């Protein structure tokens, strides 16, 4: 090949030759961790659920028409009820009544007829029992029915002062809602005293004596000498003006009131319990929010305090090592050897009078809670202690404190802080169990706690399972999501798992 030399030219003649700048965008540690976190689907889902639960805790006490101190004495452990859905199948206040005989079926019909609110939702099952009695075949029918528990309560006896009775009558006149129903004297219903729902003729067993057309025979009292206070308000349609609506009761009057309408008089609205009422008569929807809010705040507070103490302790241990480490480690051994329930109890017994229930409870959690953080910090400090950048800084004359908190700690911070997310569910779980066991009673301060809700509910779990169901679901979701989130964060912030899927 013969090419003249002058034809040869450098490809980049007269151009500046330099390395090309990196076109990739540098990514910070945090951004990298977040990216890896978002790749973990279950953790992201857990984060959303957690967010939902937190929002629930904030909003539910606000949405709920009840304050946490509103405790209804009669609607206790009642099923979920929203008035608009009263016969729809869900949120209808439905409760199943097993094996109801004719007497109680008639009683329910009586309530429906008198108050105008029909408790029947559905007949689930009819059982027939055949038996022989004095040579006759007798068929007894019992019914399994679903009734609206709020309506089925019907009428209750109440004693009012004259003023209160007057106010009630005025309210009736203003709103047109009937609360007070005509009085029935026990002697007219065969001396039965404890069933205010009877207003019709019955025999000694409480069985309704019906007219031939199957209707009830009313036995409302008309004796004016028994009447407590003159009545000037709404009368029932069948009343010809002779029925009395109250009887004398030593300086007050006793009357029959429809509890559902009385509730509207007291609260200003109909019963509205999305999750039913607790066995203390609280609105479960709001109560779970209040309890959950307390649990979360408490757990975060404990975690922050423990994080602080644990980090300081662990950093001293890890930084100085040797004898300091050994002595401090022995102290940790002792602290971690004390069973938590014992610590909580002793603190409760000693400190409650001085610093209050929450204070002593907090102390109990703080006393042993930071041990895990301390040992984690210690390991991290051991890891970074001998590294070149620390030595370099030391050579330049940096003080111990500076080395510990300006150089080593920032490197260990990610791991330590994320481990907090795994501590919180443990704290919530212990707090809930202890208040369930009744070792601490926090309800006087926070209104209620999840543990108290569970413990109150468990006594009536058979009749009103929802009182346990909703708090359990709440705690279950909270725990699962916190743990998944914590695992996700730990993996994302742990440089060792980088690039591993």
């Amino acid at each position, binding site marked *: 090949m013969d090419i003249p030399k002058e034809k040869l030219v450098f490809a980049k003649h007269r151009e500046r030759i330099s390395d090309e700048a990196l076109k990739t965008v540098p990514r910070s540690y945090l951004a990298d961790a977040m990216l890896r976190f978002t790749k973990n689907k279950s953790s992201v889902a857990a984060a959303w659920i957690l967010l939902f639960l937190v929002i629930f805790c904030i909003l539910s006490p606000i949405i709920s028409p009840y304050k946490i101190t509103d405790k209804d004495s009669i609607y206790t452990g009642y099923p979920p009820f929203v008035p608009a859905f009263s016969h729809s199948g869900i949120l209808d206040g439905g409760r199943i009544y097993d094996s109801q005989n004719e007497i109680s079926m008639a009683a329910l019909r009586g309530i429906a007829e008198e108050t105008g609110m029909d408790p029947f939702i559905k007949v689930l099952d009819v059982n027939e029992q055949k038996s022989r009695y004095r040579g006759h075949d007798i068929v007894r029918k019992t019914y399994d029915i679903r009734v609206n528990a709020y309506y089925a309560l019907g009428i209750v006896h109440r004693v009012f002062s004259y003023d209160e009775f007057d106010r009630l009558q005025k309210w009736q006149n203003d709103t047109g809602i009937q609360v007070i129903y005509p009085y029935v004297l026990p002697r007219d219903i065969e001396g039965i005293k404890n069933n205010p729902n009877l207003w019709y003729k019955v025999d000694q067993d409480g069985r309704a004596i019906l007219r031939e057309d199957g209707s009830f025979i009313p036995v409302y009292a008309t004796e004016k000498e028994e009447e407590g206070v003159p009545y000037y308000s709404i009368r029932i349609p069948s009343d010809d003006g002779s029925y009395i609506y109250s009887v004398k009761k030593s300086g007050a009057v006793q009357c029959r009131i429809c509890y559902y309408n009385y509730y509207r008089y007291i609260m200003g609205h109909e019963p509205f319990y999305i999750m039913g009422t607790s066995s203390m008569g609280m609105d479960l929807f709001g109560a779970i929010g209040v309890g959950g809010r307390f649990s979360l705040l408490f757990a975060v507070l404990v975690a922050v305090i423990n994080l602080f103490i644990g980090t300081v302790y662990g950093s001293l241990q890890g930084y100085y090592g040797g004898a300091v480490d050994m002595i401090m480690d022995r102290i940790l051994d002792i602290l971690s*050897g*004390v069973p938590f329930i014992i610590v909580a109890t002793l603190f409760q017994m000693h400190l409650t009078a001085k610093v209050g229930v929450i204070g002593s409870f907090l102390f109990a959690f703080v006393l042993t809670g930071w041990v895990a953080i301390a040992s984690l910090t210690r390991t991290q400090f051991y890891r970074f202690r001998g590294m070149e950048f620390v030595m370099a800084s030391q050579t330049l004359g940096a003080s111990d404190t500076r080395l510990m908190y300006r150089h080593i700690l920032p490197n260990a911070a990610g791991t330590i802080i994320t481990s907090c997310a795994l501590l919180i569910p443990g704290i919530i779980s212990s707090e809930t169990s202890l208040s*369930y066991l009744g070792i601490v009673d926090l309800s006087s301060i926070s209104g209620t706690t999840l543990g108290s809700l569970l413990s109150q509910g468990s006594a009536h*779990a058979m009749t009103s399972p929802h009182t346990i169901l909703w708090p359990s679901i709440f705690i*279950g979701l909270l*725990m*699962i999501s916190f743990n998944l989130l914590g695992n996700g964060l730990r993996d994302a912030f742990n440089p060792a798992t980088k690039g591993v899927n």
Partner: protein
Amino acid sequence: MIKYTIKRILYMLLVFFIIMLMSFVLVRMLPLPELPPGDPHTEVLKMRREAMGYNKPYLMQFAIFIKSVVTSFDWGLSDKLYFGQEVWAVFAEKLPATVVVNLYSIILSIPIGIGLGIFAAVRKNTWIDYLISTLTIMVISVPGFVYAFVIQYVFCYKFKIFPLVMKTGTDWFSPEMLRSMMPAILSLSLGVIASFTRTTRAELSEVLTGDFMLLARSKGLTRTQATVRHALRNCMVIIVPGIFGEFLGILSGSFVIEKIFSIPGVGSLTLNAINGPDYNIFMLSTAFYTAIGLMGALVVDISYGFLDPRIRMGEKG
């Protein structure tokens, strides 16, 4: 190894002693319950309190306490709950219920837990592994009392398979008794099963990827043979200490489960002693739970050392 073991045991005793001293002083600082006047035991209790040194300095009291415990195993008399009775006798009476319930649950849960763990590890990254792992995480996360409530509602209220509360009596191994304890056993087992499943799965799936497994397969062993003879054996180093620890833990039981299912065990006794308050019973419970906790950790550590010479924690030289 023996030297190490003895050292660990002595150290454990020291820690135990210090914890006891602290809680003893804290308990004795509390005001004593009033004794009912006129009760025949009151005079005895007063004399006992005098003998226990209730008006001496705390350290003296502790010395008397330790002395009577060590020499005659005398933990004092109950002055509230079981008026005038020996605390240890009351405690010993409650222990079997806790132990039996927990024993059943361990017997039930260890094979299931390890089995599920092996199953999940062998079928790693299939739907069945995902199912088992998800359930495991859920069961471990959710506190025990939540599924205890579910079990109680479903099995005891709804379908009435098991009675609501535990049968009374001391025929611990009769079928009737077993049936009445079943809900509690199930609730206790779930957590144990889940933790064994998780450990086994994590360990086994790591071991299964080891080079020696490839060697075992290439020398002609079947997959099952290789898994059982080589992989499982290596896993056991981690799993067996866990089983030991769990067995010791059966003594302590669970407060919540005992309360939910009304098991007349040590947990209920401790709770009553706290609410009583009955300080002598409380002191004994403190000693008991502390000892169990410390011994659990010790047994796990030492059995690691015995099983695997590479792991001898804290041993120098």
